[in-house]
């Protein structure tokens, strides 16, 4: 069953990259095959958990040994505007005896019962893991049974770690939403300008910087999936008129299937960068108009875009002076490289290289168009090569995820975390201004001078010639005790009056107290 699903997901007509492959290549999978012995990213379980955990009002129950939940809990800072149940860590915590005795299913059922009765969430998502998939626990059956018994949706998420990469896990998560959740609720308020945003994680609450823009155009976000989503909104997502896919590698399959089943058109876009945000608003408006909304929406969108772009560019202007000519290396995963590229070029920064590991051929074309002469695109870069490039001083800053930032530091290059663990919101017009501000801060932190400078002595720990030359000049503390120095030193402190052995000074003080009797001193 799993094998069929895997094959099915590997065939993605909406993915140009996938379609460019031969049928045989497609069968082997679109994700890069895992290489035993080479450093790798997360597993399919991790991918599924990442893609779904930001759904805020759902209880996320991990069926497996405790570490699957422990390690994946809250490892990115999605924001919730309401329910906090998603941050409560639920796991069946399987132990050896459970596995040997085959008690996993029973334990899972009990766990679901406890959550259902104690928390009454709108739904429970149950994640399988390597162990429970290997021993053959039928979580679909347990979920179905529990769902009937307790009267709430219990959704099986079949993405055990061994089935593939993290990215594949994202797809499986989308598959679960499509298969079990969407279309199960008919909202009574479906409107002509409802849209969904797929693959938006609301990291550091950054979607909230974009949402008001849509609202100003009268566009309602039916569901932002998964960031700050509610179960009922996802269940009603099929009533939206347009889908915008933000992180295409994660959820494009979901978008394509929603188009096939419910006729919802979708486009891929991004909120990173000024032109991209504008493009996203423009495309949304255009698709809605195609869907029958009054064409005046297009004009209103253009007016909003003009206003917002002008404001953002005005706020970026001061940074141009400080950042123009600075060289940036982009080593990003999920964040679309080209969208950040155009924003950085706005302030005159030079892009010395950008990773295209997760970019589509179209992405690459856009990068080529932006960086006319020499795009310096690279596929995944091994840490050693990355280090070499950085150590050669070819970049003033690297923008990357948390895992490679320490390589930059060892190569004495500043970095900025623009991946999922970042703590600042970079989406939309305001977000891009913030990104540039953060780059400015990171590049101009004085610690980098110290990072780049070697210890001020030679390899043998001896003073250098440069030091010997400069010693004894300028700073008085470095001067030898020449008599002239001593005299000057004295003079410098002549007025400080702490020299209580100075007879004149003491005499003065005594005079001051001369007429005073003991009582006048009080408790002095």
């Amino acid at each position, binding site marked *: 069953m799993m094998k069929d699903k895997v094959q099915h997901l590997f065939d993605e007509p909406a993915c140009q990259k996938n379609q460019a492959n031969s049928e045989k290549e497609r069968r082997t999978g679109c994700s890069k095959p895992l290489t035993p012995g080479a450093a790798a990213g997360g597993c399919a379980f991790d991918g599924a958990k990442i893609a779904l955990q930001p759904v805020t009002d759902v209880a996320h129950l991990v069926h497996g040994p405790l570490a699957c939940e422990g390690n994946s809990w809250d490892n990115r800072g999605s924001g919730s505007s309401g329910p906090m149940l998603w941050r409560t860590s639920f796991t069946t915590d399987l132990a050896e005896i459970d596995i040997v005795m085959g008690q996993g299913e029973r334990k899972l059922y009990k766990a679901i019962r406890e959550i259902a009765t104690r928390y009454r969430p709108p739904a429970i998502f149950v994640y399988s893991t390597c162990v429970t998939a290997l021993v053959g626990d039928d979580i679909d059956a347990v979920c179905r049974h529990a769902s009937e018994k307790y009267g709430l949706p219990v959704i099986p998420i079949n993405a055990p770690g061994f089935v593939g990469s993290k990215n594949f896990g994202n797809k499986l998560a989308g598959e679960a939403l499509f298969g079990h959740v969407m279309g199960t609720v008919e909202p009574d308020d479906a409107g002509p300008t409802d849209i969904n945003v797929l693959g938006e994680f609301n990291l550091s609450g950054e979607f909230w910087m974009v949402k008001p823009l849509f609202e100003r155009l009268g566009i309602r976000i039916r569901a932002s999936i998964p960031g700050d989503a509610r179960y009922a909104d996802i269940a009603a997502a099929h009533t939206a008129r347009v889908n915008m896919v933000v992180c295409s590698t994660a959820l494009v399959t979901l978008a394509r299937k929603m188009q096939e089943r419910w006729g919802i058109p979708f486009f891929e876009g991004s909120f990173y960068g000024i032109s991209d945000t504008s493009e996203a608003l423009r495309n949304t408006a255009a698709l809605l108009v195609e869907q029958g909304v009054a064409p005046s929406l297009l004009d209103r969108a253009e007016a909003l875009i003009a206003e917002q772009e002008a404001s953002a560019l005005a706020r970026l202007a001061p940074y141009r002076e400080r950042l123009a000519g600075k060289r940036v290396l982009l080593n990003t995963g999920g964040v679309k490289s080209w969208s950040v590229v155009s924003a950085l070029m706005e302030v005159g920064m030079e892009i010395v290289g950008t990773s295209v590991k997760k970019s589509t051929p179209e992405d690459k074309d856009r990068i080529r168009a932006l960086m006319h002469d020499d795009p310096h695109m690279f596929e995944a870069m091994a840490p050693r090569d990355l280090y070499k490039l950085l150590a050669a001083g070819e970049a003033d800053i690297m923008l990357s995820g948390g895992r490679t930032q320490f390589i930059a530091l060892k190569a004495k290059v500043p970095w900025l975390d623009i991946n999922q663990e970042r703590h600042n919101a970079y989406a939309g017009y305001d977000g891009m201004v913030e990104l540039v501000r953060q780059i400015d801060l990171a590049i101009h932190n004085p610690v980098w001078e*110290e990072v780049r400078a070697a210890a001020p002595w030679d390899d043998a720990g*001896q003073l250098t010639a440069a030091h010997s030359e400069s010693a004894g000049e300028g700073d008085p503390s470095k001067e030898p005790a020449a008599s002239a120095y001593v005299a000057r030193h004295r003079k410098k402190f002549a007025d400080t009056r702490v020299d*209580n052995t100075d007879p004149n000074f003491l005499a003065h003080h005594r005079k001051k107290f001369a007429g005073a009797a003991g009582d006048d001193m009080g408790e002095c």
Partner: protein
Amino acid sequence: MPQSADRILDHAPLFREPEYTELLARKRENFECPASTADIEAQSEYSKGWEYREKNLAREALVINPAKACQPLGAVFAAAGFEGTLSFVHGSQGCVAYYRSHLARHFKEPASAVSSSMTEDAAVFGGLNNMVDGLANAYSLYDPKMIAVSTTCMAEVIGDDLHAFIETSRQKGSVPQEFDVPFAHTPAFVGSHVDGYDNMVKGVVEHFWEGKERQPNDTINIIPGFDGFCVGNNRELKRILNLMGVKYTMVQDASDQYDTPSDGEFRMYYGGTKLEDVAAAVNAKATLSMQHYCTRKVLDYAADKGHMTASFRYPLGVSATDELLLKIAELTGAAIPEELTLERGRLVDALADSQAYLHGKRFAIFGDPDFVSGVTRFLMECGAEPVHCLATNGTKPWVEDMEALLASSPFGADGKVWQGKDLWHLRSLLFTEPVDFMIGSSYGKYLERDTNTPLIRLAFPIFDRHHHHRFPLWGYQGGLRLVTTILDKIFDKLDADSNEAGKTDISFDLTR
């Protein structure tokens, strides 16, 4: 009554019980002629504004919460850094009890010192008899190797001549002819504890060096200065010097005296610079001071003796430690070992790891002149911004120094130097020009409460937190401790500002 044998309440919850709150409210209403709550509120608000700040800064006669102590405290601390040395403070005994409790509360160690217990008749007739009797008693009761004499205001106001008194006592047999009794005049109404330290250390070296023929050798002397972190700092400094293989004498080292083990033995005297080492230190090639404003006179004296001298300003962080090591290498020809180069790299690594959290944070700093200078320099090194730099016992040359330091970095652009100002001034500064954090001593906690500015305790005295002084701030290792202490407060604040469930916890992140 709320107190019962079954459930004994501590004072904090006890006085919050209704019986007490009612009683205290009644007392206030009936007997204290209180101002109205509105008036108090209005006055409290007024004290936070610019108008009040101007009046506050114009204040001339009154000092409120000075961030300094008096000379004899510095002298008692200085004396604790010499082998077998008993502090003998000539003057009134109450003062001496203050120094002892002050030091004991900070170091959580016994602090021994005696006084000549001057009384009214001594004030009228002079304190000679007290000196004669006092030295005799102290010598026989406490069996010291050396008695270091300093003074309180009382003795200074009546003008007792320590040198003459001590010689008279010697002649009268209070102490043996050859017994070491260095002395320093340390009136509390002049300068502060940093000057008392300077005077006492100078008194000690003068006692051993005066009239000696100097036979120059290649050792160096290091005077650490008045330092609440002496336990950690001096040990770290000695570790560094040993790693470099330098021949050195710590002149004044209280690190062992204020950190004795609990093993059943009471050590009234423990550690400290050996007296013969102090005497031999006259032959050193150079004398270095870790705290310039604690050692101006003793350095002058060493320079007079023919030593090369150099002083630092409580060196903290990478570049200041670099300077220290380079100076030591320059004076001694010693190489800087690989181990220290590695430690340096690790500190640089740590500062870079955390730079985003330090960058642009605004700080108020108060404390002794050298401390304020050292912290200011370190903060600018991290990209943080010193804003209010206050030393009640700062001097004009310190102001010039500080202004030059602030001008040396763009991060010092907003920095203002406040010399001779007190903590009530700082309160106005914090209200009118708020900062993110404050670095200073435990006395800052009242400002923290009033102004909501989180306090990072790094300066003497630290009464309300334990054991910080056992860890170094100096050196590259100390730099790690320093940046960790500052970061802990930054992260605590970040968490505290984002931990209200459902309201502010959007960024209550596990990873920071």
